[in-house]
């Protein structure tokens, strides 16, 4: 096995059902 100079290792989970109604927050939603 190799020995690795790890900088960052991540499990990046997205819980879509907990998102607010709209992901993008551009001008259309800032009003």
């Amino acid at each position, binding site marked *: 096995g190799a*020995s690795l*100079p790890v900088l*960052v290792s*991540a*499990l990046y989970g997205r819980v879509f059902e907990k*998102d607010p109604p709209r992901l993008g927050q551009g001008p259309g939603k800032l009003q």
Partner: protein
Amino acid sequence: LDTFIAAVYEHAVILPNRTETPVSKEDALLLMNKNIDVLENAVQLAAKQGAHIIVTPEDGIYGWVFTRETIYPYLEDIPDPEVNWIPCRDPQRFGHTPVQERLSCLAKDNSIYIVANIGDKKPCNAHDPQCPADGHYQHNTNVVFDSEGKLVARYHKYNLFAPEIQFDFPKDSELVAFETPFGKFGLFTCFDIFSHDPAVVVVDDLGVDSVLYPAAWYNTLPLLSAVPFHSAWARAMRVNLLAANTHNTSMHMTGSGIYAPEAVRVFHYDMETESGQLLLAELRARPRLEPTFPASVDWSAYAQSVKLSSCEQSNFPGMIYFDKFTFTELKKDTGNYTVCQKDLCCHLTYRMSEKRMDEAYALGVFDGLHTVEGQYYLQICTLLKCQTTDLKTCGEPVGSAFTKFEEFSLSGTFGTSYVFPQMALSGSQLASERHYEVSRDGRLRSRS
């Protein structure tokens, strides 16, 4: 075709001068043609090397330095592909559309599919309650021309990035996919990759084999760098991802690649020069039919089965890109740690070659709503090097690491099946699949 040659071009976009008032259509076209001249060389080079399709970056033809008013001269009316149009053959059919005509001729003359990102404008009127005051919609738009120059796909970016004030949101999320002799393709743009609609839906519901992904992504260490993030997405969604990023080192914009579900085929990361870069790689047209197709993963299986480490440890808070993490330090050269936040517990076992006194590492966990440049709910487990040995710097950007990990295994009690596994090594290099794997019970672990 069982396989095809994919190409992506990382383009150092020639940006317009910042202006307060809109330039003339002629000046806008002049700037766009300068960029298309560069793209043309990449297209010809790719076609000579047998590429079937080439993806170019988001904002690759006019850049991103605009207000709503100053981008107007760069926009064209882009029709629905159902009109069955080859702009190279019939350039005046939808008004003055020189950019679409030139891209269509590029595709036709080089017999290659071209994916580009340009601006669409659509008139509207007072009958439409959402019609902007200036009487038209302006959309950030991906277009695809097939090898005969026909417009075969048009996608309006749904999840605009907050600074994209020059564009309007489309009314609804568009699911865009099209068939080719080398598999079914979906497409979306940059910030969309964080979303369920259309990014996950185009894979899970439309069953595409490959995704075309123009991006203008600036890297934000440690967790939001283009190459690790995009390759992790392709791995978790189990599709080919053809990611073409803009190149601009002053904005930390670099990181393109051609990613297969089971491995990175080729990637490019360059913070040293201002040059563009063409990448080519062979891909399986329908990866899910291949023996190498990765098995599905139950991301919480292992962590839910493991006995949480009971050893006394001092947790401490830290920030990663405005999110409040809970960390615990890796104090020795080998260990077994668990750290929890709300419903998520992250578990790490590891062995270092030696515990260096000049470097500090931490295990971090975040379970919450990210609310800065958009609002999306995250559950993250991460092993990372802190910027210095001061634990207050855990989560700050780091470029190099000398500590060697002989073994590690990272897992979490995730409440979602959408988990993207990242591994970045010293110098922002991507770890190779030879060195790590994702087990079916949800461990991101070194291959021993």
